[in-house]
């Protein structure tokens, strides 16, 4: 009998990749809301690290897109999950041509594996996917 796959668990952490925060530890980029919905649509279990009343959403209205910081718990595919969500949010073509700021983490404890990238979308998306466990860097 095949074992049902466990949905990936993702924790959404505060922070603005590539940008300084006025309230460190409390601010999320405004893209967070849509990215969370897209991750849930893809079957992931997604939670915020902070309760709602402690979260601040920041809209950074320059075209470079700031994405939320994601921690993958027990999942080796956090990079791909975020890359796929970005493409579904923007469309593949726009995602590849845009400037993106991302950070994903994998594992728990004080020393998670971290992938932080800023730059051209096509490069950033490739970097995210290469971060997945079992992929060649």
């Amino acid at each position, binding site marked *: 009998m095949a074992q049902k796959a466990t949905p990936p668990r993702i924790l959404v952490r505060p922070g603005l990749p590539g940008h300084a925060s*006025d309230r460190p530890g409390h*601010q999320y980029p*405004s893209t967070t*809301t*849509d990215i969370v*919905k*897209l991750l849930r649509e893809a079957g992931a279990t997604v939670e915020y690290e902070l309760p*709602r009343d402690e979260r*601040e*959403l*920041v*809209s*950074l*209205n*320059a*075209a*470079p897109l700031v994405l939320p910081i994601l921690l993958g718990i027990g999942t080796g595919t956090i990079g791909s999950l975020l890359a796929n969500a970005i493409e579904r*949010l*923007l469309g593949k073509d*726009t995602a590849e*041509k845009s*400037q993106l700021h991302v950070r994903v983490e994998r594992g728990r404890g004080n020393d998670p594996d971290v992938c932080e990238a800023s730059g051209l979308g096509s490069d950033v998306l490739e970097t995210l996917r290469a971060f997945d466990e079992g992929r060649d860097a």
Partner: protein
Amino acid sequence: MPDPRALLDEAREHLRESHELLDRDREREAETVARASFETYRSAMNWAEAEFRDDLFDQAHRELDEAGAFVRRTFGCAVLFEQGSYWQTCPVALAHNRSGLSVRAVIRASECSVCRSDPEDCDHITGRMYGDQPCYRIITEAEIPEISLVPRPAQPDARITRVPVSHEQLEQRLGRPFAPGTPLNCDFCLSTCSGVVRPWG
């Protein structure tokens, strides 16, 4: 979202109408309509740039320059003098600086354009169509701690609308007895275009 091709068509229509009005000796109306094409061309450049459509951007830029030259030669162009200062307010000149404005906003309250609930509480996703309704976040309460100049604003039409022209520069170029308040012509569109300026490279 505005389509740069539709904006180009709209701008061309303004110019076509201007020429028709000129043919009927309705010069004042012809000028008004021709000048209306400037903002439309500028917007076409902005949205083409946002969509990474270099071909459309270049076309809109070229046609904006041509429209500017037509208006300058046909009707003349004066530099605005207001409250003791000269100002460059012409969309043709201003479009050549590709800086835009970006707002950093801390969102205190917002709602979904489709269902009007808090976007965290609904399943609608920005950019998707739900029936004939596009989904976007309506920010109803925010703090704005910062406004920045950026190379690519997320709102492509968020641009500079006027730039002061320094009296000292004018005095140097025009010599004495130039006095502030003297009516000045703008000849920006009479020179060969040297391209757009991208302050960030």
